[in-house]
């Protein structure tokens, strides 16, 4: 019976030992561990997940979170320190394109070497290498040394050489689309056909968009531990939100030591216009106000301007408006500035509302902060995208495009 899972990990962990030098190591070995000469670095801790055949898993997380370590474990490049895992099917990993290419050898020789290294017999490798070279569009350069190739050509060769193994489980570290745009499309198509053929994919990437597009599920690692696992969209959004909060926190800390006599924002709220009450959840199309309370101890010396921005969970800045763009001035030594948003056009999502206090010219930022809670927008329609465009439809029964242009040609007088 075929096992249900292509990949399964239970409480997987990896501890690297850092030695305090060769002598400390020799001493520890000779005293059979009584004299400790190393410290342990935990790169991965308690990772458990299951990935069914044909499934796809995206690994996300900041640098040093353990993504590459996990891929190395799953590809059998290194062994776990604790826990266990199993793979079912032929595993191939692409941890680095063209690892081990020899610059003096031809594309054909290197591709052959790579295919044999990834587990093909010499006969199989010879057949597939020709396909790989054709796929990489290097037929004219097959016998040229790789050393004279451009970076893009070498990467194309690396990708093609790796894919020609026809794995059942594919582990990718950041590299899945290389070369120019046309070739990247080819790579993506190749991966799509791999997935359509029932292949199981594990992809590690910082490009959250790619993870969402290519993967059903995602695993979010933070400091070697699982911070979230589940649907790719949900997990990547949660990860992006945490990244954004982290960035916001850092910036606030940096900006939090403003001079006492500088202008500042002292509070802000989102208010539903028809109730006049503060809210955290609104619906697309409702009338909303953003109310910002500000102070300016020295209105003559530091005239101010206010900016408000909407940042979605994936860090897309959806819109930003500012008083100096609209010719409004914040006079006096303080007050509340209301930004009215009739028929809110943002579509469903979670938004961070950013606030800036600019100088008169809108260049120098006295303060950069954000509302202390996110604004959740719930959609009621089936529209997709960032915003709802004001729109109407018109249906004409004519076979021509732009019928009014055809029927009434515009005469241009010289």
């Amino acid at each position, binding site marked *: 019976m075929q096992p249900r899972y292509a990949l399964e990990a239970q409480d997987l962990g990896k501890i690297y030992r850092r030695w305090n030098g060769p002598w400390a190591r020799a001493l520890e070995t000779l005293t059979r561990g009584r004299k400790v000469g190393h410290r342990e670095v935990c790169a991965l801790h308690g990772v458990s997940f299951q990935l069914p055949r044909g499934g796809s898993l995206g690994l996300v997380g900041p640098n040093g979170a353990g993504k590459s370590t996990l891929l190395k474990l799953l590809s059998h490049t*290194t062994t776990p320190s604790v826990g266990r895992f199993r793979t079912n099917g032929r595993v191939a990993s692409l941890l680095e394109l063209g690892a*081990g290419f020899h610059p003096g050898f031809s594309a054909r020789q290197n591709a052959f070497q790579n295919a*044999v290294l990834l587990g093909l017999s010499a006969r199989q490798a010879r057949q597939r290498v020709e396909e790989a070279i054709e796929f990489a569009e290097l037929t004219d350069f097959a016998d040229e040394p790789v050393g004279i190739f451009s970076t893009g050509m070498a990467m194309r060769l690396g990708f093609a050489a790796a894919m020609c193994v026809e794995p059942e489980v594919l582990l990718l570290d950041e590299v899945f689309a290389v070369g120019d745009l046309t070739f990247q499309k080819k790579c993506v198509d190749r991966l799509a056909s791999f997935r359509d053929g029932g292949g199981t994919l594990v992809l590690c990437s910082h490009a959250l968009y790619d993870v969402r597009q290519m993967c059903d599920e995602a695993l979010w690692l933070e400091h070697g531990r699982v911070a979230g696992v589940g649907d790719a969209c949900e997990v990547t959004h949660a990860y992006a939100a945490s990244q954004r909060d982290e960035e916001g926190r850092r910036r606030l800390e940096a900006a939090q030591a403003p001079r006492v006599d500088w202008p500042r924002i002292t509070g802000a709220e989102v208010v539903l216009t028809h109730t006049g009450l503060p809210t955290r959840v609104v619906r697309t199309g409702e009338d909303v106000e953003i109310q910002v309370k500000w102070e300016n101890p020295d209105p003559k010396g530091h005239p101010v301007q206010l900016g408000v921005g909407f940042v979605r969970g994936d860090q897309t800045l959806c819109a930003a408006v500012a008083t100096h763009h609209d010719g409004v001035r914040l006079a006096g030594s303080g007050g509340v500035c209301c930004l009215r948003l009739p028929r809110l056009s943002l579509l469903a999502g979670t938004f961070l509302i950013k606030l800036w206090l600019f100088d008169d010219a809108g260049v120098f930022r006295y303060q950069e902060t954000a509302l202390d809670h996110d604004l959740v927008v719930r959609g009621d329609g089936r529209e997709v995208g960032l915003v709802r465009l004001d729109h109407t439809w018109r249906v004409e029964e004519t076979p021509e495009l732009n019928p009014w242009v055809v029927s009434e040609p515009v005469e241009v007088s010289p």
Partner: protein
Amino acid sequence: MPHHVPETHGGWIGPDRPGPADYIAELWRYPKRAALHRDLVLAWVRREWRARFLGTALGPLWPFVQPLALFLAYAFVFSVLFGLRPVAPDASPALGAVWIFAGVLVWTSFAECVSRASTTFLEHRNLVQRSSFPADLLVLQPVITSFATFAVGAIVFLCVAWFVAGTHPSIAHIGLAGALVALHLAWILGLGLALASAQVVLRDTASLVGVTLTVWMFATPIFWVADPAALPALEPWLGWIEANPMHSLTEAWRWVLLGESAAPFARAELTADLARFAPWAFGALFLGLASARALRGELSDEVAA
């Protein structure tokens, strides 16, 4: 399909903690692995061979230049400058030269293999860190390359020796050549694996190997003959010289290559040399396989550091 990419069906993989049985099992698991991945090993050997001669005009002639230059340099220093006759006075000079050159061939191939093997894992750290394959097979590359060079050199040598000194192998010794080849391979593979593993853990190993090889070469009867009649000062050291595995190995090869003509110089019969060398070869093989096995789980982490 001989796929070494791990193809497990429900087998759990946990921390690698080999027990005594795993170390012993390497004695047959390693050759099995090598046979399964023979295409990979052969591709490595071919690649190494090509890489070595890439862009050279003389190409495969280079492996013979080294022992020849060594031989000429030492012949000049010992015979011309020092006026030493390193061989028994009654032996013909041509025979003596042929005897010495046979030893030089064995030694250069051994030294080359050991010094190259000791850096194997680090040299291929790109591969070891980023792809999964039986990395301990990498050591087969210097082993096979150096032994193949030696084999070709030996054939050229047989022709030259026959022409210069009229020597030829004898049937009696050829019968044991198979055993000698097996022991020779076990010896260099074992040492290669052990040193390659040691080098990963302690980077002093390669330097240590270089120094040791130099001292070892002079301590082994390569450029001189262990004959107290020619070199009376040797007398107290004869026990040590005979215990030296490289003495047994070079002498065994001299028997095989020169046949009966080796008799005046040899300290022991071929069978005695083989019997003395066998424990060294098996000991080295086991040590090498065991150390590579012990390192396996951590190899990719260790080469990174």
